[in-house]
């Protein structure tokens, strides 16, 4: 039995440099700082130890803030740590010797993706103790906590795959890094920007309410995490949270409610809003699953292109 050689080498090289430990340090420091600030912000208005409802709300808030910052760090660190995965090999001229071995192009890609994902998973698991603070305060169940971290792990793996594939399509690390950040920014902003643009265009006609397809907001990491982290405690259950994930949830609920009857409505036969616990129903296709499937499709397409680019013999030097 033999481990993927590229994975084995990547892990060895990565953990040998001090960079890995610096990244772990920054990641955990920022999460701890977030938890501290949220806690401080809630306790400035008085002692909460005797107020169970406030404690629970704080626990929920803290959980969602930590999740949001965790996601933001994943969106920042994945391009930073992965963009040079294959472009760097090309730039250092180490790809050529690898391409004349018996490794398949997809083994090279898989090795790179597994190495990048392993490191991101290490970061996410290392941050579980910070998450436990929210659990101790209440407002979330252990399963909710795991679900939130789990969905961020899935996003981290898919994003690593997409960024590594983009890296295979470029020749220089600098280009690959710019492309990776541009792509990640598009992933986060394109849907909401399109939605807003269509809202403005739709509203200017004056004869209709603003109702662009809410689906535009689905293929978005923030929406995916917001939906997966919703749990049972949402705005309708008396715990009004105030954090970016809650804002994202409210935005999608509003968007969905505006086009439920349109031809482009999000699964007209289901009640998507139920997934955000607006009406307390739990049927329908979950929004986070829809988003993950969309991201997985995109990742599969990019991987296909990357494997084609790595294949030799080729018409031009790869």
């Amino acid at each position, binding site marked *: *039995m033999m481990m993927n*050689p590229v994975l084995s080498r990547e892990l060895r090289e990565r953990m040998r440099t001090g960079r890995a430990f610096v990244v772990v340090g920054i990641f955990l420091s920022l999460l701890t700082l977030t938890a501290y600030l949220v806690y401080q912000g809630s306790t400035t208005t008085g002692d909460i130890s005797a107020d169970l409802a406030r404690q629970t709300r704080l626990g929920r808030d803290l959980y969602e803030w930590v999740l949001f910052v965790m996601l933001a760090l994943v969106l920042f660190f994945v391009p930073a740590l992965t963009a040079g995965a294959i472009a760097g090999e090309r730039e250092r001229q180490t790809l050529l*010797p690898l391409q004349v071995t018996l*490794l398949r192009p997809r083994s090279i890609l898989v090795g790179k993706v597994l190495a990048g994902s392993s490191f991101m998973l290490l970061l996410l698991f290392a941050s579980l103790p910070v998450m436990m603070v929210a659990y101790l305060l209440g407002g979330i169940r252990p399963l909710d906590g795991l679900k939130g971290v789990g969905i961020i792990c899935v996003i981290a793996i898919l994003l690593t795959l997409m960024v590594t594939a983009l890296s295979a399509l470029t020749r220089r690390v600098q280009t690959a890094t710019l492309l990776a950040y541009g792509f990640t920014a598009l992933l986060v902003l394109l849907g909401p920007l399109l939605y807003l643009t269509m809202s403005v265009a739709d509203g200017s006609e004056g004869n209709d309410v603003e109702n662009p397809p809410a689906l535009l907001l689905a293929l978005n990491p923030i929406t995916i995490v917001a939906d997966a982290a919703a749990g049972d405690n949402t705005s309708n259950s008396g715990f009004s949270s105030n954090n970016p994930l809650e804002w994202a949830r409210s935005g999608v609920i509003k968007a969905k409610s505006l086009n439920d009857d349109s031809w482009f409505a999000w699964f007209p036969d289901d009640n998507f809003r139920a997934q955000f616990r607006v009406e307390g129903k739990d049927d329908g296709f979950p929004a986070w699953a829809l988003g993950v499937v969309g991201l997985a499709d995109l990742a599969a397409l990019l991987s296909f292109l990357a494997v084609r680019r790595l294949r030799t013999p080729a018409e031009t030097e790869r």
Partner: protein
Amino acid sequence: MTSTTDTTTIEILPTEPTDTTETTAADASVAVRATQLSKRYGNLLAVNGLDLTVPRGSIFGLIGPNGAGKSTTFAMMSSLLLPTSGRIVVMGADPSRKPRTVRRRMGYMPDNLGVYDNLRVDEYLEFFAASYGIARTEWTDLVDGLLELVDLSVKRTAMVNSLSRGMKQRLSLARALVHDPELLVLDEPASGLDPRARVELRELLKTLNGMGKTIIISSHILSELEEMCTDVAIMEAGKLLAAGPPRQILERLGGARNVRVRFANGASEAFSVADDAEQSALLRRLVVEEGRDVVEFVEESGGLEQLFMSLTEGIVQ
């Protein structure tokens, strides 16, 4: 030196039988045969109708100025590039159609040193052993043998980035040998090396040739190739100008060679001869007929250089 295994979970290209339809009796003595091989990049014809035969067991020098098409030819041999037209057969297989067969049987050392700086020397070779599907149980002996061969045993646990250029060059050669190929394709292996490292590399290549490996090498240092190569091919602007044993090419071109003779009285004279027969006649005349005390009779190097200069025109594409 090593054997490969199929009991791996990683995706190693499976063993593929040699394409016997491509191997004829005549090819048994041929390591590489290119027929009207061409490679075009847009408007640039990098290799233009190359006909080349590399005998098995030879040390074959591919000579040419920068941009002559040597590296492109090597890339096509090594199953990295597809020819635009023509055909190339390497160790009995077409690299375009059977890349895995070719990769199993040849080791390629590109002109640029691609080494991973954050690995130790032994880890570096183990990584490539794994990439060729060699079983882990064989790695220790394999690495020991390769490091001994390239004289890097004392650097076994050193980090690759601490090695000198010459050592990195030898490590790259060890990497190309990791799967015990029959054919070695070395693109400018001596570039940037100091004289001692060059001599060591030359000796190493002779040793490998003595082990039965066919070696194809390109270099700008013609005096070294002259001493080492049994056959050469001279390319310019993508075209083959001449190929064969260097002396035969010189003789075919009617070129003279210089012989320097040193006498016992300290005097030294240069003579120009056309071929081996004329050279032996000269020696006989000096020693037997004229009775002079010859203490040194040396054919001056520079024959390949002379050949190169007389054949090439300095065309830049």
